[in-house]
Every structure is written in C-alpha cells, then in structure tokens.
C-alpha cells in the first residue's frame, strides 16, 4: 500500500542572477506514496513552483535526485525522458496562458497523444479525446471551440484533460485553482479528487491557500525559502504545528465566525532574500525562539515523531528567550 511512487533527495536548483546565486530550491527532501496527495504550501517566491517543475525536468536541477519508481530520472537520456514524461504530467496555474490560443480544445487535448504517437488511426484518437472531454466534465460541443471562448473553469478542465491524455501516474498540480473564483475552485477540486479515486493518481498539489490544501491533501509540506521546514499529515499540522513558521502561518488563517478573535503571531521583519542566503536556519532571523546555534547550523528535516518531519533544532522545547 505504502509504495513510494516518487522520492526527492537533496534537490537543489540555483539560478544565476546579477547579484549572486538565487537559491530557489535548496536541498529539498520528500516522498509521495501511490495514490496520495502531498500539498506543498509556502508564500510566493519560496520555490514551490520551481520544485514542481524541477521534478518534471522542465527546469534542470543543479544537484540531487528525483527517484520515480526508484529510478533517478534526472540522469535519464533525452529519449528515455520522453518515454518517462507519459507517466508524469502537470496542470498549470494560469488557465489563460496554459492553452495555445490558436488550437481548438480537441487539438489541445490531442497534442500529447500525437507527439507520443499513442494511436495509429484518427478514429482511435477521436474516441480517446471524447472520453477525456467527458471525464473532465466538458460538454462535447466545446470540442471545436477555441480557448478564448471558454471561461476559466472550463479552460482549467481542458488543461486537466490534456494532462490526463497520456494516462500518467503522477500529476504536479501547480496552483490549479488559485486563478479561479471560489465556486469554480470547489468544482475543480472535487473533479481532481474524483479523478484521483477513479484513476489512482498521485498528486503533488502546490498552493498558497491553506484551506484549499487542507481540503485535498493527505500530507502537507510547508516550504520556506527553498527548504521544506515541516511535513506532516493534514490533520496534525492544523491542530498542532511544530515549526514556529508553521505556527505563524496557520495563525494567519481567518476564522469565518462573527466575534471570534484569533491571536495572531506576527513575524518580525521580511522574508530574507533567497540570493546567497546565510548559513544556519533560514527562519532564524525572524524566529522568536532562535538561539545561537540556529544561526550557525542548518537544521535537517528529521522525523521527530512518527510521520511528522520538522526542520528545527528545538522541536517541542520552544521557549521564548
């Protein structure tokens, strides 16, 4: 049951900029089991989208390993990678720029099938397209429409159908609902959940909206400045966050109840620049509990309690100094 479908080890992606190396992804470790959804949350610019793209080799990683069924795909040759791509696909954030405006809906969905020469005859291809369109809940008459004729939710469904075309096992969902309005968000999330159940998909769900992540994820990873600082099942992270950053992050979720005031943990200062970050815990400068060695030694992501991974030197012994 708990078969690791994908495992990431010490993944690093640094971008060269004028003022130095930008550590977008800086030693990320996690794994995802078959049929599971791992939510990846963090504020803008923390490297969560980059992580998703590096996994699929849309961006080349600097170092580390991405094991898909225990094989490091970062070492695959081009033709091997092309075969591999059938197993892992991506759904994008922006439903407006993720579809080629010059192609019709059925052409967009057909693209991956044509590129990988999945079907020999036109009829087979058409049947598959019809099946996919039905599966994501689009009506058949939209087949010949162009993307600009569809609304955001429908476009996102087309994007999902395209990602499903090759029958992947693993999907990276890069903020698939953050550009949609709330009721469409719910529809798309439910669609994704249904698809996961029917097709046995595994998801990496990238988002910045905590309630969306809570709704869909089995486990949640919190990212801060290119590193995962906490990785826990979705229940305990909301009930009992261990990392001080997670605590602050969760205290920012508003409670939709009249008169309820929540105590907010306000963090000092700003997110430090990801360009040439200093040694030590990335969060140390803003943490209320930081001690001397927090600034000197980068904490490793360790399993402090069964199934709960935290990167903090003082888990469970936080006290204000």
């Amino acid at each position, binding site marked *: 049951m708990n078969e690791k479908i994908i495992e990431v080890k010490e993944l690093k992606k640094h971008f060269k900029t004028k003022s130095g190396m930008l550590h977008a992804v800086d030693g990320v470790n996690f794994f995802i089991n078959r049929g599971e959804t791992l939510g990846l949350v963090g504020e803008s610019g923390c490297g969560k989208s980059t992580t998703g793209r590096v996994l699929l080799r849309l961006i080349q990683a600097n170092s580390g390993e991405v094991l898909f069924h225990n094989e490091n795909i970062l070492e695959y040759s081009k033709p091997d990678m092309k075969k591999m791509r059938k197993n892992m696909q*991506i759904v994008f954030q922006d439903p407006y720029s993720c579809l*080629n405006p*010059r192609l019709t809906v059925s052409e967009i969905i057909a*693209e991956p099938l044509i*590129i*990988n020469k999945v079907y020999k005859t036109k009829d087979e291809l058409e049947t598959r397209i019809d099946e996919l369109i039905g599966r994501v809940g689009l009506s058949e008459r939209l087949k010949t429409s*162009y993307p*600009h004729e569809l609304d955001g939710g429908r476009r996102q469904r087309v994007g999902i159908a395209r990602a499903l075309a090759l029958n992947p096992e693993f999907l990276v969902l890069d903020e698939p609902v953050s550009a949609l309005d709330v009721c469409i968000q719910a529809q798309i999330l439910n669609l994704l959940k249904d698809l996961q159940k029917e097709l046995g998909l595994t998801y990496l769900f990238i988002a910045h909206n905590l309630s969306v992540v809570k709704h869909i994820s089995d486990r949640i990873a919190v990212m801060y400045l290119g590193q995962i600082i906490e990785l826990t099942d979705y229940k305990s992270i909301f009930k009992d966050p261990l990392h001080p950053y997670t605590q602050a992050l969760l205290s920012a979720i508003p409670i939709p109840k009249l008169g309820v005031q929540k105590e907010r943990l306000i963090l000092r200062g700003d997110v430090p620049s990801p360009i040439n970050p200093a040694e030590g815990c990335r969060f140390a400068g803003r943490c209320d509990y930081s001690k001397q060695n927090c600034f000197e030694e980068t904490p490793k992501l360790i399993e402090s309690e069964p199934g709960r991974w935290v990167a903090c030197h003082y888990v469970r012994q936080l006290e204000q100094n």
Partner: protein
Amino acid sequence: MNTVKQKKNKKKSIWLDVWRRLRKNKMAVGGLVIIILLFLTAIFADWIAPYSYESQDLLNMFQTPSFEHWFGTDEFGRDIFSRIVYGSRISLEVGFIAVGISLIIGGSIGAIAGYYGGRLENLLMRCMDVLLAIPEILLAIAIVAALGPSIANLMIAVGISSIPGYARLVRASVMSIREQEFIEAARAAGSSDFRIIVKHILPNCMAPIIVQATIGVAIAILTAAGLSFIGLGIQPPTPEWGSMLSGGRSYIRDYPHMTLFPGIAMMVTILALNLLGDGLRDALDPKLKN
C-alpha cells in the same frame, strides 16, 4: 469521417474570422482590391498592354496623353501605359520575392535566437546588429554593386538588407510567447523543440510578421525602384517604375507626364500595401474579437 470534416471547417474559420474583421475596414479592403488588380495586371500584361514595352516609335516621341497613348510616350516613342503595365510584373516580383528571402532567413534567425537564448542568441543578434548598423539602402547598393546589376541580384540585395528587421521582430515575438505556460505544457508532453517552434510559437506570432511583411513589400518595391533609379537595378529596355522615373527625370520640365505616371503607379501600390498592412494588423489581433 464526419468529425474530420468538421475539424477542417473549423480550421478555416480562424482565417474566416480574420476576413470578417478585415472586411469592415473599408480602407484595407480598398488596398486589397488594388493589390489584386495589380496582380491581375501583372499576370495578364500581354493582353492588357496595347503596345509592346520595347517597340520604339521615333515619330511619336514625347507624346502627351491621348486616346492612342493613354499615358503618352517617352523619349523613344514607347507607350508609357504599356511600360507601366509590364513594369508591375517586375515590381511585384521584386517586392514579394525580396520579402520572402528576408522573411525566411531573418525569421529563422530570429526564431532560433528567441527560442534558445543565451550565447547563441547573442552571437546571432550581434551579427544582425552589424547588418543593422549599415543603412539598408547603402547595404543594398553595396550588394548589387558587388554582384552586378540584374533582377535576381536586385532581389537578393533588397532581401538581405532587410533581414535584421525581421530577425529582431520574430525574436521579440518568440521571446514573449516562449514564456507562456502552454509551451511548458508542450515540453512536459515530450514535444521536440522544432515542433514547439513551428506548431506553438510561430502561429502565435503570425500577426506582427504578416503586418511587417505587407509593409515590407512596399519598402522593398521602393528600394528596388531607388536602385533602378541610380542605374543599379533593372537594365533597359526592361520596364521598371524606378528606372522609368529616372529616365524621365531629364525631361521633367517639358514632359512631366513621363515621371508622373510611373510615380503615381508606385504611389498607389505602396499606399495600397500600407493600407492592407494596417488593416491586417487590426484584423489579426486575437484580442479584438468581432
């Protein structure tokens, strides 16, 4: 079978859409009509022209326009109307082929530079900058002077001199499209670079290229005429509007019709191309639906 047919109909409709929008623009339609007429004139020149373009009639030199000679005759008694009709062949040929040359070469360079970026882009674009640093007409003169004056060399010269413009234009549009997520989606599906450029990028930067090419034809015709005017282009007795202007220049005080009519022909052609180019720009903009 039915579905395939449906698809074909829809494929056409993107151009039908453009045509619907273009039709609303009266000026652009006017330009298009003139260009179609010009093409017909060029194709059926043998039937339209009342005289041969090189038959001299020395008894009827410098005739002013009349029923016999609609646009008058030149210093050798050749019928100017016939020469303008035949001249349209040369002008259109030079204009379109020269633009074709620069579009294919410049477009490929721009697409490669824009798509791959980095050092390759730097190398290609700096080469283009070198070409761009030399004024277009001067470059064309230099090329024709080196290759020797002939129609083919004229087209090559005009074509080469406008390569950098297209390279820059295509590069800029490719760069803006390259960053879109549907390119990443194609890559995630395992698409090759060539397929991405041809299927996903180029169709999306067609609009500015078509507009530039239309106006480019007008510029190429002008450049070719300019080269002929200074004697580096088409050689007599082949009729060309630029060389006709040049030939009539010495008699402009006494017989202005000799320069007037080729000038008008050129002006009308260029005006028509520019109007069509402007109209196409509006019609091809996918953001202006209906």
